[in-house]
């Protein structure tokens, strides 16, 4: 290991001696200074998770959240210099974190929060003009095989729990007032769609979310409809078209 790797590894561990060869400019103890630096790095990463997962933190309380986040930071140090993406595997960590197992909806709630950030920072793309889509109506057989490309900022969430309601309740000034009305065991799905600089979260049918996921993975129009649970197709399409979410299509040769 190079000195640099050695330094980085010790920085991201809970213990470990100060890497050799460090000197303070004024001759003070480098071990103490290194400990301060290490603590700041850890705390900044926990703060980053708290920024991305505010509702998850609100559900757990700050103390529990930060203790869990500290373990995550140790297990999954950053792999990218982009701090906004840090914690994309946090929902999976939450799912497998035994002390949080009493809140089975928590991992999906965290997924919703990460997808929100991903939608916010995703690339721009222009919507396909409606006239181009209308042109597809001329040939119903070709339409069935068309493959739509969707906007990079589009995200979906599907959960067995009412995580969308939970998230929305936390956007109000006084979440406690509406939390009691949520039946957590009612599954929900949502579409995250960026309009200008704002990410909107729209509740949709689970089938519509499946349909959109299939389109995103490259399925043809007819196959995507077939493989989803029943849903209102024209509603789902209207939502996508209105949100400028269809950016391109290809016809089968």
């Amino acid at each position, binding site marked *: 290991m190079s000195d640099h790797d050695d330094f980085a590894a010790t920085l991201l561990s809970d213990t470990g001696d100060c890497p050799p060869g460090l000197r303070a400019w004024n001759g003070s103890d480098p071990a103490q200074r290194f400990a301060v630096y290490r603590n700041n790095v850890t705390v900044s990463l926990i703060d980053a998770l708290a*920024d*991305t997962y505010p509702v998850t933190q609100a559900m757990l309380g700050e103390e529990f959240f930060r203790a869990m986040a500290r373990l995550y930071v140790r297990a999954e140090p950053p792999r990218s210099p982009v701090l906004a993406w*840090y914690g994309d595997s946090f929902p999976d960590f939450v799912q497998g974190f035994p002390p949080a197992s009493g809140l089975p909806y928590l991992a999906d709630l965290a997924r919703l929060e990460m997808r929100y950030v991903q939608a916010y920072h995703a690339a721009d793309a222009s919507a396909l003009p409606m006239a181009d889509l209308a042109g597809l109506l001329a040939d*119903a057989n070709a339409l069935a095989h068309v493959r739509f490309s969707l906007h990079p900022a589009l995200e979906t969430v599907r959960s067995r729990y009412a995580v969308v309601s939970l998230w929305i309740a936390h956007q109000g*000034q006084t979440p406690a007032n509406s939390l009691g009305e949520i039946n957590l065991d009612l599954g929900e799905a949502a579409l995250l769609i960026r309009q200008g600089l704002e990410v909107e979260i729209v509740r949709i049918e689970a089938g519509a979310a499946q349909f959109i996921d299939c389109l995103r993975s490259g399925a043809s129009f007819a196959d995507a409809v*077939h493989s989803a649970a029943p849903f209102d197709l*024209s509603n789902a*399409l209207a939502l996508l078209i209105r949100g400028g979410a269809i950016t391109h299509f290809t016809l089968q040769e």
Partner: protein
Amino acid sequence: MNKAVTTTSLALALSAALAVAAIPMTAHAAEKDKCFGVALKGKNDCKAGAGTSCAGTSKVDYQSNAWSMVPKGTCEQTTSPTSPTGFGQLQEFKAKSA
């Protein structure tokens, strides 16, 4: 499963969707006002995630240059102790001293 989907029904759905989408948007985003001075500490609505400078960064309650999206028309009815009018405002304002 939607095994009964026919090519005709796909075309009908797209056609209906295009008709609906042609009507101007009345979704909630269009009905909201940016309201200054009503966000509680750390609860302003600019959510860009970690590493950005604006998510949840208002440091004092009712900070006058921090805004939240509120249902249209309700901003100027929301109490704001820092506002000279006593309510939220649609523009940034200079906080009165408490």
